[in-house]
């Protein structure tokens, strides 16, 4: 790295008023009636309203040519930070110093108008994104080729398929050349192969030595592109360092019951003769990172004042998606190896459940724990533990299903009965 500063953020904070990120909706009538009610009051400043800090006391520096990923849960302040950096909204306190021309890409297709043709939209969107007309003209052919829409360039974009639209929109954005590029979660659109092409293009950008700030939930993409990572939590920086550690930190937190594995604070149902005390998930490397399809072990630590024979006790682990469909239940009655072993269950016994992998797409899921003794409910923790499954190259082809292709991943093989092949 060149060692020259590209972005310096110091003690940045952004406060929104409570009750939503908006300022209260003003009408002229309010102002008039308020000023009639209290004619002098309009001259005074309104009292400071209690607010909510979307970003609070954030400081970091980015050097020229560094590619930094910003990761964090929804509501952690990523978008607000990006909006401040790209000058859309002003901070409440602190400051940002930018040592270079900034281009931001917070949305694919900013400024696109459905009535205008592809050609017209390239120029429109390009100049909204800060490109000069001459610059767009130079790159025009490249943009059209990248988007692969040569035939439709003079058709209004309202007649485009959504795929074509996104490809064109991204192609324009991908060709802007600011010194500092700020990219929000824009790769969540388009089909997988185009996503890969975009990642490739962004990788090129990064290799050209430009400073890039990249926000995404796609951990694979973040790890692929970025050297450094900043983890945001509740508007503040929780971790700032190299990207592997940042992702690890984030995913470590992504398995969460508060901030520990302690289940005591959760809502338990049942007689509590056997009670779940601790819950952990580890992958084959002993880390708490869960990725699609990789082997996992669930660890359950129990609390009890009695002793039980495991053949009388049933344990279950249920996995739901965020809209509360049960996807799978792991149950000692389905397997029997545990029941048949007649283990002694006593205080602090740790039982395990191993699986070859959760063949589910990257997303958040909720876990339910269950135990009964001779059919009598002993402990039940419903949907209180959330896990994040991170993306993994499940099929080894780099292609993954998009969100409308279902949540389940199954290894499969395509073939044909007859074995005649084209002779080239």
């Amino acid at each position, binding site marked *: 790295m060149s*060692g*020259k*500063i590209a972005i*310096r953020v*110091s003690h940045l904070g952004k406060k*929104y008023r409570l009750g939503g*990120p*908006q*300022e209260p*909706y*003003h*009408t*002229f*009538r309010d*102002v008039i009636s308020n000023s009639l009610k209290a004619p002098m009051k309009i001259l005074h400043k309104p009292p400071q309203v209690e607010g909510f800090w979307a970003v609070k006391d954030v*400081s970091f*520096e980015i050097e020229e040519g560094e590619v930094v990923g910003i990761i964090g849960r929804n509501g952690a302040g990523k978008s607000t930070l990006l*909006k*401040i*950096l*790209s*000058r*859309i*909204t*002003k*901070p*409440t*306190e*602190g*400051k*940002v*110093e*930018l*040592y*270079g*021309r*900034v281009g*931001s890409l*917070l*949305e694919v297709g*900013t*400024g696109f*108008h459905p*009535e*205008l043709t592809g050609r*017209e939209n390239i*120029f*429109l969107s390009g*100049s*909204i*994104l*800060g490109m*000069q*007309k001459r610059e767009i003209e130079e790159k025009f052919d490249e943009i059209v080729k990248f988007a692969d829409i040569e035939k439709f360039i003079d058709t209004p974009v309202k007649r485009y398929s959504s795929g074509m639209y996104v490809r064109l929109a991204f192609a324009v954005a991908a060709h802007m050349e600011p010194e500092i590029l700020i990219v929000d979660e824009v790769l969540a659109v388009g089909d997988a192969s185009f996503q890969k092409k975009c990642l490739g293009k962004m990788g090129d950008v990064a290799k050209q030595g430009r400073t890039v700030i990249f926000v995404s939930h796609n951990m694979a993409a973040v790890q692929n592109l970025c050297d450094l990572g900043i983890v945001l939590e509740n508007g503040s920086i929780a971790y700032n360092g190299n990207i592997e550690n940042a992702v690890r930190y984030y995913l470590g937190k992504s398995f969460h019951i508060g901030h520990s594995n302690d289940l005591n604070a959760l809502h338990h149902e049942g007689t509590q003769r056997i009670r779940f005390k601790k819950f952990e998930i580890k992958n084959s490397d002993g880390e708490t990172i869960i990725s699609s399809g990789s082997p996992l072990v669930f660890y359950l630590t129990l609390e009890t004042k009695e002793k039980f024979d495991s053949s009388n006790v049933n344990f279950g682990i249920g996995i739901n998606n965020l809209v509360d469909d049960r996807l799978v239940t792991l149950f000692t009655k389905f397997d029997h190896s545990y029941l048949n072993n007649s283990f002694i269950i006593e205080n602090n016994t740790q039982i395990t459940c191993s699986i070859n992998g959760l063949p589910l797409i990257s997303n958040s899921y909720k876990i339910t724990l269950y135990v009964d003794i001779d059919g009598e409910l002993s402990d039940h923790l419903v949907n209180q533990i959330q896990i994040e499954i991170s993306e993994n190259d499940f099929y080894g082809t780099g292609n993954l299903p998009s969100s409308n292709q279902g949540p389940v991943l199954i290894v499969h093989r395509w073939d044909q009965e007859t074995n005649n092949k084209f002779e080239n």
Partner: protein
Amino acid sequence: MNDNCNISDKNTKPLLTIEPPKKWLPLDIHELWNYRELILTFTMRDIKLRYKQTGLGIAWAVLQPLLTMLIFSIVFGRLAKLPSDGVPYPLFILAALLPWTLFAEGLNRSTTSMVTNSNIMTKVYFPRMIMPLSGIMSPIIDFAICLIVLFIMMVYYGFAPTINIIFFPLFLILAIATSLSVGLWLSALNVKYRDFQFTVPFLIQIWMFLSPVVYASSIIPDSYRFLYGLNPMAGVIEGFRWALLGVGVPSITVLVSVCMVIILLVSGMFYFRRIEQYYADIV
């Protein structure tokens, strides 16, 4: 302070510093100039979209003022017999409708531009003033076409332009400046108080009768000329008629109007700069 900045770059100044909102911001005309292509792009977009999918296309630009001229000529010229300083009433009316339409359309578009384009403006930065500016500029094509129609009509009525026509560009600039100054105020106010988009059509209607569109400004008594100039459009229209048709003599009204526009324009720009800092939080 825990500012651990490198000693090497202590001397280099940042290209840009983002700070909390301030009460007064400098106007930064330089930045606007850097974005001049974008003003043109938005203006062209508006013009293209305006006539797309219309059967008559750009003919609407001529048709609207022509029909207005026709109706006004019948109602105010023939029926009410308002004096027109000895000029054929249709010419008299059209010379005023030209700057008036420019003003009214520009006002309309710039006021709503900040709200209708919020999807763009909350996703990408450019000087916010570009939006009302391009709103003001987009009726200029219509204006140019109507100007040609006026010249054709002058030929038809055998009305030769006088030497005054060399002052026409000055009054055109004054008309655009008027439109911009009011447009900036209204678009900033409209961001803060949405009431203004409902007020504008009404305001324009009243404003037209307060301006010498259908009547000659010569009917205003001399003692009120100064006050009359506080309406900048009075000066603009008086100037247009004088420059294009050679009727009337620019009075104190024009001078007062020019001062008024300068005051409105400068204050409007500062007010706009102040409001724009909260734009993304309000819209």
